[in-house]
């Protein structure tokens, strides 16, 4: 599958609730699906030494990241019996309270969607070269690290 060109997972800016709602709506024609599971990453207004995060600015090694997203996708379909799967990640500025990651898995029955979704999210956090710069209200910043 390596020769298939990876899709672009990245979206400029926050992922809107309308986009997510529409994505759900599009699955109504897939009537073999019985269970959807959705993960949303939202930017937290963390307090760090008395300063508050107002936004995260995302950059990525885009070609490698899209290839990794593609590899995660292939591996997930190998491991789990899913009907479909979608991943979207923000680039650029996403304000506190906005959505920066949208992972959507669907299957005929529920058990597999729980396992698959957690697997995908953990793989993304560990293996995709995306970098978040936490911007404080005073315009200073620090670099986010996943735990």
């Amino acid at each position: 599958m390596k020769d298939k060109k990876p899709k672009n997972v990245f979206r400029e800016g926050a992922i809107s609730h309308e986009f997510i709602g529409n994505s759900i709506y599009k699955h109504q024609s897939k009537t073999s699906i019985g269970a959807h599971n959705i993960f949303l990453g939202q930017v937290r207004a963390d307090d760090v030494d008395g300063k508050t995060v107002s936004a995260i600015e995302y950059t990525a090694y885009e070609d490698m990241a899209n290839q990794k997203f593609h590899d995660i996708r292939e591996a997930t379909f190998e491991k789990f019996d899913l009907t479909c799967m979608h991943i979207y990640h923000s680039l650029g500025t996403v304000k506190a309270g906005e959505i920066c990651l949208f992972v959507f898995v669907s299957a005929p029955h529920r058990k597999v969607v729980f396992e698959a979704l957690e697997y995908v999210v953990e793989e993304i956090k560990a293996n995709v070269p995306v970098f978040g710069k936490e911007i404080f209200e005073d315009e200073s910043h620090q670099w986010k690290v996943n735990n």
Partner: protein
Amino acid sequence: MEITIKYFGQLVETTNTTEELITIEKGQISSLLNLLLNKHKGLKQKDFQIAQNQEIVSVDTELSGAEIALLPPFSGG
């Protein structure tokens, strides 16, 4: 050979560049790494992985001439 080096995240601040061309003899990633650490002293204090041709590699991997990227800790999602 000539190799494109890309920097990401906080390493852009450390090196003040997103991309540069380096000319180097054949050898392992480690020899390139030594050269870069000498050129950009700030890198010594930084935690990063190295990708060659978009795959994470160890320092004893042979340089292939493909694009190299220095990647700080990932923080997607």
